[in-house]
């Protein structure tokens, strides 16, 4: 009887030791698995951050048309003073404004350089009170140059990387703006002006971006769908009776 229970005890101990070893191995395996997953997750997040940062490297491909500009209280005017006015309310961080710029930018540039239209840009700060305002202020810095059209296009093109002051300085430099303009961007010297532009837009009842006015009339966004529609609407609104 005692002999049998010894046997039984030995067998049980052996089984328990085996089970403990198996459990320890399983725990180790699980731990390694979890650590591996955690590392992959961290790498993915890190790579994501790096990707968002790197695709935001400043590039300026198209210098844009050159046209004389002037600083207004509520925006920047480009082109002949007596032509019909096309007004664009845009935030450089707003994706739909970028799309509008890609759809109609070249068409509007042509109207401006040929003297058929005067463009007034109202760079508002609807998306981000800090970065939008900074980019608007940068445009204000360039308002007395002939590179406003190119600079605003460069701002849109580089919006994905956000607008830290250093990035705005890079965009301004890459656009080929003069040193004093770049210095103005660096100093954020036109921030107060940018705030005034924003206030004026809200006072006028502009609630979203982009908003376009032709000769003082708000253009339904459908009419900005492509250059042909826009040109037709422009012709209709500016036709002299």
């Amino acid at each position: 009887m005692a002999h049998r229970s010894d046997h039984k005890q030995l067998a049980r101990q052996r089984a328990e030791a085996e089970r403990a070893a198996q459990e320890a191995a399983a725990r180790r395996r699980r731990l390694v698995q979890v650590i591996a997953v955690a590392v992959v997750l961290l790498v993915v997040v890190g790579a994501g951050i790096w990707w968002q940062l790197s695709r935001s490297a400043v590039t300026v491909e198209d210098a844009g048309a050159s046209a004389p500009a002037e600083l207004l209280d509520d925006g920047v005017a480009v082109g002949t003073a007596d032509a019909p006015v096309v007004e664009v309310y845009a935030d450089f961080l707003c994706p739909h404004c970028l799309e509008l710029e890609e759809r109609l930018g070249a068409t509007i540039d042509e109207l401006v350089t040929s003297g058929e239209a005067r463009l007034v840009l109202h760079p508002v700060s609807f998306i981000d009170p800090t970065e939008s305002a900074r980019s608007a202020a940068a445009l204000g810095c360039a308002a007395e140059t002939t590179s406003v059209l190119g600079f605003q296009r460069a701002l849109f093109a580089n919006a994905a990387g956000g607008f830290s002051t250093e990035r705005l300085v890079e965009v301004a430099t890459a656009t080929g703006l003069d040193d004093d303009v770049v210095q103005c961007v660096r100093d954020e010297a036109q921030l107060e002006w940018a705030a005034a532009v924003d206030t004026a837009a809200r006072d006028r009842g502009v609630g979203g971006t982009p908003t376009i006015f032709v000769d003082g009339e708000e253009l339904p966004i459908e009419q900005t769908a492509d250059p042909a529609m826009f040109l037709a609407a422009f012709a209709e609104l500016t036709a002299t009776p």
Partner: protein
Amino acid sequence: MSGATASPSANSAHADRRTDLGTSGRLLTWLPWAATAARLVLAAVLGLAGALKIGDPAASVAAVRAYQLLPESVERLVGYGLPFLEIGLAVLLLLGLATRLAAIGAFLLMAAFVAGIASAWARGLAIDCGCFGGGGTVAPADTDYLVTILRDLGLALLAAFLVWRPASALSVDAWSSVSPLRAEVVAGEPDAAPELRR
């Protein structure tokens, strides 16, 4: 079978064990499915939140900035990295891979969101939470802090449940290792096999 050949006391002990196994067995049949449901709900919400933010990094950074809690360089990292973290956790939860780790991550995220929103509310900011894209300042009448906090608390609760009971049905975890159910059954009859062998 083996119990019948042993003493009466051993027999009754064995019967008790069967009863225990029955109770935990019943628990174990619905718990893994509840965990699966929790996993899928969290995965759907996190995945949606990440997907809606990932295409517009500038807006994501702006949404973080609207909370006015972090220094500018950190705001950018959070704005850029958060959508990837959300999608990463969503994928883990969807697969049921490293469920407890993912649940801890989801719980900490929700806790951080609740804290951020509560602090914005307490400071009288009027912002959109930016949870599913968007974000930034809104009209004071358009804030919905309470609903957002309750939703995130509910999600945190689901995550906490998963931290407590990460074993779930239809998961890579269950498929790739000894499932807790099987482990329980094996642990329940440790001396059955030696007895039979003898």
